[in-house]
């Protein structure tokens, strides 16, 4: 069994050098839910500029999936998801 983290409750396996973005894409997960204004979220620019892959970590910090290394057992949620921001 490989190492894994979860995104919006879904378990995702990762390799040592994965970011949350590369691991999610390999697991076939392209959609990261919606933004406050209804825009579809997912990996786009890959270098922290477009803010389309924003997710929320267990501390409630909004982070870019493309800049976030994977950590065994970490739990992330969608921006407007279960543990996300509420407006």
């Amino acid at each position: 069994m490989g190492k894994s983290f979860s995104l919006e409750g879904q378990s995702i396996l990762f390799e040592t050098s994965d970011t949350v973005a590369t691991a999610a894409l390999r697991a076939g997960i392209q959609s990261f839910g919606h933004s406050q204004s209804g825009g579809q979220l997912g990996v786009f620019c890959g270098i922290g500029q477009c803010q389309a892959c924003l997710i929320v970590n267990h501390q409630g910090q909004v982070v870019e999936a493309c800049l976030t290394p994977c950590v065994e057992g970490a739990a992330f949620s969608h921006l407007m998801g279960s543990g996300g921001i509420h407006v």
Partner: protein
Amino acid sequence: MSEAAQVLVVGAGLAGMSAASALADSGISVRLIEQAPVIGGAVLRQALQGTDPRLHGPHQDYGSRLITRMQQQRNIQVSRSCQFGGVDSDGRVLLVHSSQGSHEMLQPRALIVAVGATERIRPRPGWHLPGVMTAGSIQVGMKTSLTAPPGRIVLAGTGPLLLAVGAQMTRMGAPPLAIVEAANPLGRWHQALRLPFVYGLEAADYWLTLKRAKVPIWMQSEVTDIAQQEAGLRIHVNTPKGIRIWDIDSLGLHDGIFPNDYGFSRSDHLIWRNAGDCHEALGARAAAAHGELVANEIGALLKPGSATVRPAALKRLERERSAQALLKLVYQHDEKPMLDQLPLHTVICRCENRTLGDLKALGEQPTVREIRLLGRFAMGACQGRFCGHWVQCLSGNEKKLSKSVLMAAHWPSRPLSIQGLVTTADHLGSNSLESVT
């Protein structure tokens, strides 16, 4: 407030690293921050663990030397996973350690912003769908994770990066289904022959790698529609031989680069320079040279007599400027017809989900206020990076809309937690105000 280095360099790519290293050589203390967990920027992005020399192409050797040299310089402090939050009117810089949720204020004497380029992605119907990303994103994903991107992928748009990414994917064992190029660079071979020899060598290497793997390269072709399927995407591609339809998992788009100079409001209280691609988008070879030149300029201001003349860097910058102008000619094509044919349901602002129809509904020649406040264009989390230029082109008011007003800078340039800001303010205390003067 943190013990201030004399110079803060934002971005540990080629320009930022070469600027930091040149400043340190002059005995100036540098804090170098990088938002990614690893240094290298888009070109030399290091893997989170391990290394694969196939991925950095012709910049591998120079990059490794630069990284090694920088690591030996004691007066450079590098902070990874650290983002630039903005500068206040007193010249205090806010740094965000996003994964820890902590913030930090600095008051350097000079700031070098070296945050590279933004990929220029022309809107197409469906470009907002999950599974559509930039070609650069696919490339950086490979460099960071050292694994091939998954699924059936088509690369589309224009420019040599499509060939570079396609060749890198092929070497990782996952060639793209096809490359769709809007221009006809082969038809301009006589201009291509005037490019520096290393450019030709690099292009030939990519071309041969792709041809050996039998990757079709469609010239003068264009993705005209992207639709979501039950599994994956369906794209329509307009080729000289008619419309082709492909079912794919991901689409990598790229239509050139812009300087990534959005979201910065300047302060008169510190010396400020942009370096590398965020000053002038001239690519990797020029970025390192420009970083050196900017460092030299700042060195002369902070420590008169310390700066050394760098004729080699100046010469390199000039050479790259003319090479990039030539490349532009080689890849020249008219994109106006493609913009004119965009259907009204095409999303223009991905952040706020605003369409071409929403833009047209603002009337003929809308003002900046109408575009921003009524239309909600260039107002999203990306600060107008990905829609601003196209809003200018498509609004019918291109000449009157200044980019700097349309994409007016407001800081903080990142989502910040109120908790973190409060803690930072507590740290500042009352003494910090005295240190401003």
